[in-house]
């Protein structure tokens, strides 16, 4: 890999991973804000409005950073990956403007209404604007996942003699079979992160004996939603998403599972460190035959190992393998945490059990790690292809941009993003420190 290609990859990886920290929470929180606002609209109970307002404040800070760090990614398709844009812009680019036109306008327009417009619009419009923000956030995710799904599993195109692809079917691209479960898994992951953030902040207030009502509401909502979401994260969304990997991307599957040799009745490696030189796992713990079952539904199925492919078609083994195992390991821990939470809620001990509240509070960053790790599996595991089977990553870069330019601007982004991260933590920390508005917490809307 040349210097320039490496520099482009580092730049994209860094900017996209930093950016994605924010959509995780905007998508995750938007749903819960709409839920709280709906409960308020129906019952007139002001506590729910106060909670919705509180989360909307955190949402707004997230959204602002999400927007400003998202624009560079769209630009990078042209600036860093111009040969890729030129190759397939007419196909993969179909959903890119639709994100802006359908989802993003919705999100930003209604966010303004929800936060600033409370006194200016009728109650029903204010409620609908929270639903609009959620719809916009969640829809926006689909259009972006559809672009990625096309890179994972290109459909709806035809190759022209010049080597570029042309659109054959818009619907095939929009309804890519790869996109459906990938989207479900992505959104589910974001909602789960939302539940953990709400639960973590609730636990913080409960432990510090502040905002009792708000803390209990948050904890209850977080563990119930969290249990459902942590289960659906594994099944069906995770399971069916990986079935698509089995079907369309055999090298990615073998890499993420650390399977070097093709095996009938392949075992599932729970832990172990890949030794790529010698094509084996160091200190593995296996569940016999289980990988065959997960991939194909029966215990004696044959699973292809990496060794039947030439080395130049292998994705980076270590990164993909660890990212996958971190994601799955954390996902399992999330189920356990949320299960314990619902159990304590049932035994009426959730709000008093200090051990549990500490765990829930400290668990807050881990869904972020799991979400990011999932994307590392998806994108690093796709290598060496930029568009699976069609275009190599090394052939998608801009040749008129020198490595030195990319390194320079990557350093610039690193500096600016470090500043953004500090500001973000500081500002969100301050919102949490101030807490939700307490006035008239138990009062019911006079209008009802």
């Amino acid at each position: 890999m040349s210097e320039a290609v490496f520099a482009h990859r580092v730049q994209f990886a860094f900017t996209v991973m930093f950016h994605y920290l924010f959509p995780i929470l905007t998508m995750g929180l938007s749903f819960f804000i709409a839920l709280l606002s709906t409960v308020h609209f129906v019952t007139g109970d002001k506590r729910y409005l106060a909670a919705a307002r509180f989360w909307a404040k955190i949402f707004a800070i997230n959204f602002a950073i999400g927007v400003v760090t998202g624009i560079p990614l769209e630009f990078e398709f042209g600036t860093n990956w111009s040969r890729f844009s030129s190759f397939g812009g007419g196909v993969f680019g179909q959903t890119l403007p639709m994100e802006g036109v359908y989802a993003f306008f919705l999100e930003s327009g209604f966010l303004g209404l929800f936060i600033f417009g409370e006194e200016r619009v009728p109650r029903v419009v204010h409620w609908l604007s929270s639903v609009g923000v959620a719809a916009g956030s969640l829809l926006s995710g689909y259009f972006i996942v559809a672009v990625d799904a096309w890179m994972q599993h290109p459909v709806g195109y035809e190759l022209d003699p010049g080597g570029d692809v042309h659109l054959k079917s818009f619907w095939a691209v929009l309804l890519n079979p790869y996109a459906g479960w990938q989207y479900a898994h992505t959104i589910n992951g974001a909602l789960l992160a939302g539940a953990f953030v709400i639960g973590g902040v609730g636990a913080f207030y409960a432990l510090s004996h502040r905002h009792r009502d708000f803390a209990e509401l948050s904890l209850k909502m977080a563990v119930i939603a969290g249990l459902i979401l942590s289960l659906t994260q594994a099944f069906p969304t995770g399971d069916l998403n990986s079935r698509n990997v089995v079907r369309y991307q055999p090298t990615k599957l073998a890499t993420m599972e650390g399977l070097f040799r093709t095996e009938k009745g392949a075992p599932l490696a729970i832990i172990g460190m890949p030794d790529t030189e010698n094509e084996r796992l160091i200190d593995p713990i296996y569940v016999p035959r289980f990988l065959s079952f997960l991939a194909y539904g029966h215990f004696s199925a044959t699973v292809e190992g990496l060794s039947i492919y030439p080395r130049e078609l292998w994705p980076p083994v270590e990164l993909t393998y660890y990212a996958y195992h971190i994601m799955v390991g954390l996902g399992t821990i999330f189920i356990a945490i949320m299960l314990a939470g619902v159990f304590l809620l049932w035994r009426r001990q959730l709000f008093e059990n200090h051990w549990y509240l500490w765990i829930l509070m400290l668990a807050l960053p881990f869904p972020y790690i799991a979400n990011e790790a999932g994307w590392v599996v998806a994108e690093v595991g796709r290598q060496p292809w930029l568009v699976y089977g069609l275009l190599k990553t090394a052939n998608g870069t801009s040749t008129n941009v020198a490595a030195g330019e990319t390194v320079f601007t990557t350093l610039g982004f690193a500096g600016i993003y470090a500043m953004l991260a500090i500001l973000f933590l500081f500002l969100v920390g301050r919102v949490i420190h101030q807490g939700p508005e307490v006035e008239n917490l138990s009062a019911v809307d006079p209008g009802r």
Partner: protein
Amino acid sequence: MNIVWFWTLGVMLTAYAVLDGYDLGVGALHLWLARGNEERRVVLNAIGPVWNGNEVWLIAAGGMMVVSFPKVYASGFSGFYLALMVVLWLLILRGVSIEFRGQIDHELWRAFWDAGFCIGSLLIALLLGVALGNVLRGLPIRADGYFQGTFTLLLNPYSLLTGILSLVVLTWHGCNYLRVKTEVDLLLRARCWSARLWSVVVLLVIAATAATLTLGPAMGRNFRLHPLALVFPLFTLIGLIGGFLCRREHDRGAFWSSTAVIVGLLTSAATTAFPNLLGSTLDPSYSLTIYNAASSPHALRVSFIANIVGMIAVVVYSTYVHRTFSGKVKLGDHSY
């Protein structure tokens, strides 16, 4: 269909320039116009609920260019690599300046973000004009459709002129927007600035038109072929006259005048370039046009339908949002 897409992108970019133009202009001017925290907050709240939505026009236009003219997106964006990265940094600086200024009640904190907002807005307005100037002037596009845009190449006298024109016109536009949104002292000062800026705009429009016509014989060609297109420069002229008539009162009229000037300038520029999207200075046959840089006819048709439906919805609800926040700014609990 290629021509339809050319004008669709033209409309998108013009809408962006008109909408984000006023908040860029507000940013560039507010240090000199608004005095004290109260006035600065009024200025910020004039654009607060809408700036984000305005910026989305740029994102949508970018996405549309990927799908309609992928070769132009590829060539232009990679060619302008460094300049665009600087624009991105400025967009980030500007966005966080608006959102974070009011978060802490401290003079130095506010002063820092006020300056960030100003510098970000000012340089973006300038650089957008520089980019447009270079597109009109032509770039050293090679046979493979790419070029390498170094700063020494991009910062030439002609595009610096268009850059300054862009900065001054948008500042004037932002100033007129503030005339609509503010009261008392701030309003009087905005009127005063608006009148001053108007005369600079007139001088720069004349200079830029002259400079463009002397760039080459091809520059006026489209207007000779299609005299109807002269309606575009006429917009600019009407806007300038309107700006003069509305310099003392009629604040809304002033805002619509600067809108007409921007629309006129951009549509005239588009007419001048047509059918080139990026002209080559090395060999005209290397130029990227709406024909050789476009997606397949099927892709163009499909994406046009897919986006036009959404755009209609966008126009409807951005009008609603703008209406909701119309009128003079009143500071409240949830303000910036």
